[in-house]
């Protein structure tokens, strides 16, 4: 492959334990679409990734891979420095990142260091590239905002699950990249994380439950439903306030935002603060005993019934469905 001397679209592809996250493949797909609009190539910057060739399938032409044990744990300042140097190396005119907690942490640092305008929560490819105009969510998913980025370098934060994965027939070459790392004075003491579970940010399906479950001892069926669907588990605010579930599971305006393909709400009435946080999900299913629960107005599918009867049955039906579809 010939060396690209001209500008490229740079995409930050996040990995965990050497493996690309699903959001990395999504932002790579998005970067390819932007590169097509601009008539250029896609370069990915990755940190300690193993199977970098995988990115070729999603339209990446070249990967700059950093192998450095001091970058094993995420550090916003160091990672931002890596991306800034990669952007300068490939003369990036657009830098694409995801909406993960880590990408949202580093993107504002990038923006200042690259003198680049940054639009977060973007849900579509640019409607025009001159001016560079993107559609993003605002008012906690109650509206969209069309924003133009006026600077020579543009940073786009892609909303999770908004673009999907788009396969392309490509081959990616990998180069080692050795940036200069800054001193950082934010030192990690401990990380407390369930490593075997799908995270809310990465999940295509989220199973969420509320006070209708009556107590933390009844969460077994919620976990089982999530397992059958390969889903992440989440909960409403009262449930996390009561300590029934960890705060990391709380979704809603003051909790984590959810933008899954399918959101299943069990025993959640649907307070406006809850709905604000989950509205970006594409398909919403509600199970509630109270047909007047506000969630029914926000949902696509609803079941009026007792969670303790509906959920076990639904698990059986889904198991049967999975068995007949594999």
């Amino acid at each position, binding site marked *: 492959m010939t060396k690209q001397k001209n500008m490229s679209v740079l995409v930050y592809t996040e990995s965990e334990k050497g493996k690309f996250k699903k959001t990395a493949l999504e932002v790579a797909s998005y970067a390819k679409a932007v590169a097509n609009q601009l008539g250029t190539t896609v370069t990915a910057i990755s940190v300690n990734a193993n199977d970098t060739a995988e990115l070729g399938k999603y339209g990446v032409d070249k990967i700059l891979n950093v192998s450095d044990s001091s970058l094993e744990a995420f550090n916003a300042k160091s990672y931002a420095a890596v991306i800034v140097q990669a952007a300068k190396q490939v003369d990036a005119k657009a830098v694409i990142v995801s909406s993960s907690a880590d990408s949202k942490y580093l993107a504002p640092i990038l923006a200042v260091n690259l003198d680049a305008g940054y639009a977060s929560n973007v849900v579509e490819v640019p409607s025009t590239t001159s001016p560079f105009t993107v559609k993003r969510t605002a008012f906690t998913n109650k509206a969209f905002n069309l924003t133009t980025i006026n600077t020579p370098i543009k940073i786009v934060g892609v909303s999770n699950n908004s673009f999907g994965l788009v396969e392309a027939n490509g081959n990616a070459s990998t180069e080692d990249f050795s940036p200069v790392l800054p001193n950082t004075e934010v030192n990690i003491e401990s990380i407390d*994380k369930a490593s075997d579970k799908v995270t809310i940010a990465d999940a295509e399906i989220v199973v969420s439950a509320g006070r209708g479950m009556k107590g933390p001892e009844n969460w077994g069926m919620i976990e089982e439903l999530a397992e059958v669907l390969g889903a992440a588990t989440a909960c409403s605010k009262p449930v996390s306030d009561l300590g029934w579930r960890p705060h990391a599971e709380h979704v809603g305006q003051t909790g984590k935002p959810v933008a899954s393909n399918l959101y299943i709400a069990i025993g959640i009435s649907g307070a406006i603060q809850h709905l604000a946080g989950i509205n970006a999900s594409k398909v919403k299913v509600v199970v509630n005993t109270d047909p007047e629960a506000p969630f029914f107005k926000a949902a696509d599918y609803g079941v009026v019934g007792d969670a303790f009867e509906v959920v076990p049955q639904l698990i059986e039906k889904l198991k049967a469905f999975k068995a007949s579809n594999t």
Partner: protein
Amino acid sequence: MKILVCISHVPDTTSKINFTDNDSKFDTNGVQFVINPNDEFGLTRAMWFKEKQGASVDVINVGGTDTEPTLRKALAIGADAAIRINTEAKDGYQVAKELAKVAKDGSYDLVIAGRESIDYNGAMVPGMLATLLDANFVTNCIKLEIEGTKATASREIDGGKETVTTSLPLVVGGQKGLVNESDLRIPNMRGIMMARKKPLTVLEPTTTINETTSVKFEKPEPKGNVKLVDADNLDELVSLLHNEAKVI
């Protein structure tokens, strides 16, 4: 310790979201404005530092005179002084630049902003501000302790939490968890009376840069009615999710 808390003036969560001027501006008609919830958690934690560790707490907002009641509310909750930068907030970078100047001139040790506002949801001001100030930075912060110039903070990460140690000067992107919701304060009459006498300084803006421009707003397509499935016929739900919604 000198603390600066950044306060966004945002529509209350229950507000109807409408737009005017060819959908270019938010329609404030009949809308009640509040302290951005993520900022309120930070303000409340700052009050704790004031009461337990003798910190001073100033609050700041970038906005027009219409945002002053929100700053007065922060004073009524207990902040010592307020600053308003007299310009319309147009994008995150502009706001961060204005805040950075004040934070630098005032030699603040700790700046707390919400991780994001609930109107524009940019989630960019705290990180930009930290970078402009060359200060340490922790966002999605759910716990913050400070001893001397040393800070211990926890931040929410995808799937869990992380605890870090760092030092002042520090910029924090706060959220729920920084204090419990039950610790949030409703201003009492004495606080409201005192807030009237506290200083509210108006500064003129120093930057005109807009790296991004809001062109227009759109509302999502109205959603169709919910399809109800009988609790005894869950096969139909599975079928709808597979064949119609195509999500399983």
